């Protein structure tokens, strides 16, 4: 085993680190309000931070770094997946703005279009994703299709040059702030469950697409219910092979599990906790002097290290041309449980102070722990529950029977 970056990777790592330190405002990492592996997406308490956010995304796009692993002809850098992983790690470590749901475009839709899109589709969407101009939401879940995505009922029926969409999507994260949906729909309503589905790209502005906000556990509007009523999209927006959407979905889900991790965020959050326990006393003693605090934090540190390695492994496999289907599932199980464990450990260490929900002189670590505690509830559910992940590991990884 060899855990060293190549010289090229290391050089990119260092260049990026320097860039982030230089370009982000001093103390920036204290501004975003998020727990590692969050799906809740409400990054700032101060609305002014959105300006920094947007101007920073432009800078990253200018460097061509939004999509570094894409071919140069598509606005990428032609870097390998390991460099992409380094980028994700560094960005999340510095809590750098990654574009509002930008990761869906750059992390999932882009790579999928590069693999299964037509030249025309690539030409239409890829450069704009690379420049950070357009954003996507994931149109997977429906009221009766959660873990069981095979049960999607939203139909897309051909009518001349159009596909006519009818149905409903739910848990549509940040759909209201995005431009397009990357949506799975049923193109052959008579086919059996896992057949007859296809991917389409749906413009949010399409007539017949309506959204209803859903307020999440944190009190934020991140989810939406999206209703499609005779919404017409061009047939050309069907991506990949018609009625083979389920085969494509497996790959898209792998990208999602890897993209969402934000592995550097764990390290950063952990460093904040370490700082806090080293500088705060309770009952006459530094928190860091309490043996159980030391053990618990050492355990979290160990699990972060494991998370890092499971993360690098998926990149390494992609670079070898392998599908990290099982490995991305292990990664998701490990890091989402870590997100919960870290919140729980922090809560235990902070005692009643951990429950504070707004920054005040009494709130440890900018009141992030109570947020993380609630936020991480979704981690083991969203993008495939831990139960589904374990099914995948057992069935696809270990070859146990599907019964």
């Amino acid at each position: 085993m060899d855990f060293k970056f190549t010289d090229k990777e290391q050089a990119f790592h260092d260049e990026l680190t320097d860039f982030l330190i230089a370009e982000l405002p001093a103390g920036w990492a204290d501004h975003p309000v998020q727990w590692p592996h969050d799906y809740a997406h409400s990054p700032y308490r101060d609305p002014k931070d959105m300006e920094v956010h947007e101007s920073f995304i432009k800078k990253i796009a200018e460097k061509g770094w939004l999509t570094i692993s894409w071919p140069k002809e598509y606005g990428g850098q032609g870097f390998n997946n390991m460099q992409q992983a380094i980028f994700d790690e560094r960005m999340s470590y510095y809590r750098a703005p990654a574009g509002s749901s930008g990761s869906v475009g750059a992390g999932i839709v882009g790579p999928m279009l590069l693999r299964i899109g037509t030249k025309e589709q690539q030409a239409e969407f890829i450069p704009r994703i690379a420049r950070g101009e357009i954003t996507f939401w994931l149109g997977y879940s429906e009221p009766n299709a959660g873990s069981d995505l095979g049960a999607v009922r939203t139909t897309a029926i051909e009518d001349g040059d159009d596909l006519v969409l009818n149905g409903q999507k739910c848990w549509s994260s940040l759909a209201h702030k995005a431009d397009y949906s990357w949506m799975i729909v049923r193109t052959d309503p008579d086919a059996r469950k896992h057949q007859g589905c296809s991917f389409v790209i749906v413009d949010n502005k399409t007539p017949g697409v309506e959204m209803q906000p859903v307020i999440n556990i944190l009190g934020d509007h991140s989810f939406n219910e999206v209703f499609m009523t005779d919404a017409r999209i061009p047939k050309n927006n069907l991506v990949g092979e018609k009625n083979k959407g389920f085969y494509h979905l497996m790959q898209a889900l792998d990208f999602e599990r890897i993209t969402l991790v934000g592995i550097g965020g764990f390290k950063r959050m952990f460093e904040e906790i370490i700082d806090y326990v080293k500088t705060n006393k309770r009952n006459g003693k530094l928190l860091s002097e309490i043996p159980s605090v030391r053990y618990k934090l050492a355990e979290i540190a160990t699990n972060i290290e494991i998370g890092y390695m499971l993360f690098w492994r998926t990149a390494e496999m992609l670079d070898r041309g392998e599908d990290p289907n099982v490995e991305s599932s292990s990664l998701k199980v490990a890091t989402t449980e870590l997100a919960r464990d870290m919140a729980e450990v922090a809560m235990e260490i902070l005692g009643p102070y951990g429950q504070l929900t707004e920054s005040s002189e009494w709130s440890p670590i900018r009141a992030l722990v109570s947020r993380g505690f609630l936020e991480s509830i979704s981690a083991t559910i969203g993008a495939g529950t831990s139960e589904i992940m374990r099914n995948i590991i057992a069935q696809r990884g270990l070859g146990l029977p599907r019964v």
Partner: protein
Amino acid sequence: MNLDLNTEQKLLKNSARSFLKQECPSALVRKVRNSDEAFPETLWKNMADMGWMGLGIDEEYGGIGGSASDVAVLMEAMGEASLPAPFFTTVVVSGTAIQQSSNEEMKAKLLPLLVTGKLVSSFALIEPNNDYGLTHIRTAATADGSDWIISGTKLFVEYAKGARYFLTVANVEGTGLIVAMIDAATDGIKLKSMPTLDYSKQCEVVFNAVKVPAENILALGDDAESMLNHLEDICAVAKCSEMMGAIQSVLDVSVEYVKDRTQFGQPVGGFQAVQHHCANMAVNVDSARYLTGLAAWKLSEGLPATKEASMAKSFVSKAAVRVSKLGHQVHGAISFCDEHDMHLYLRRTQSASMAFGNTEYHLEKVAQKIGL
């Protein structure tokens, strides 16, 4: 031995549950959360009309008596409803403290008000230097003739804004602790919100040279110590009961949901992983129920209860959060929405698990009681 409730307790439980279902639906919990009022006055008044404020209070003061086990029944129903009102600090904590005090004047003055719901009292214990327990109390009480002058900062004071009194613990240099009922209308008291995830309207309370008449002192020195030790057991068990109510609901709601929700062509409750999550919830709920019941029974019988109270608090604090999280897991994404009630239970159990000593705090007490 009878591990069920007795007949009166079953009646109390049923009436409390149906009252709260009617008067304290989750919509009210959200409404109170979003409003500036400390707690819903009407609900409070109606609770008083039910006679609840007199539970555990001697009849001579207008109370209806009743044991710690009876109070546990009520606290459980309140946990189930995520009650956004200061019953715990007023009746359970302050009521117990006042009754235990030898200050007859205070009893005669405050208890009759308390049992009719006219007195709301909050508990001011924790300070910036500590997280629970009776050590490192720096709020200072100094004698001033027959009065006391109290100065210091208290944190995590529940429902402070609606309180007429603060049951307060302070330190008299060289003498030990003092427990006082501080009138909220006294000069020198400042409140500042400390919003917490359980919506319980906690506050920072600053006492700046607050003058407290001698007649407001409930206990001093050894008396204070023993009162606070007893309160610690009482509070631990009450919080366990509250968590019990919440997790029994989590289990019930979850079982109902997984029977109904279909995925992959069958109820999700048919999947073994979901079944085992539910079975684990059930074993945890049962274990929590009996441990809490045992501690409450010991208190009711006047037996030493610290070991059992701390066993309950250490176990239920963990079990309740575990059950709440499993409830979310078997629900999936729907439980991550504000409109769903599941997170109300999670919030309540998490905060209660940290209140009045977390698991390690109580494990250490258990260790002492088992001779370690």
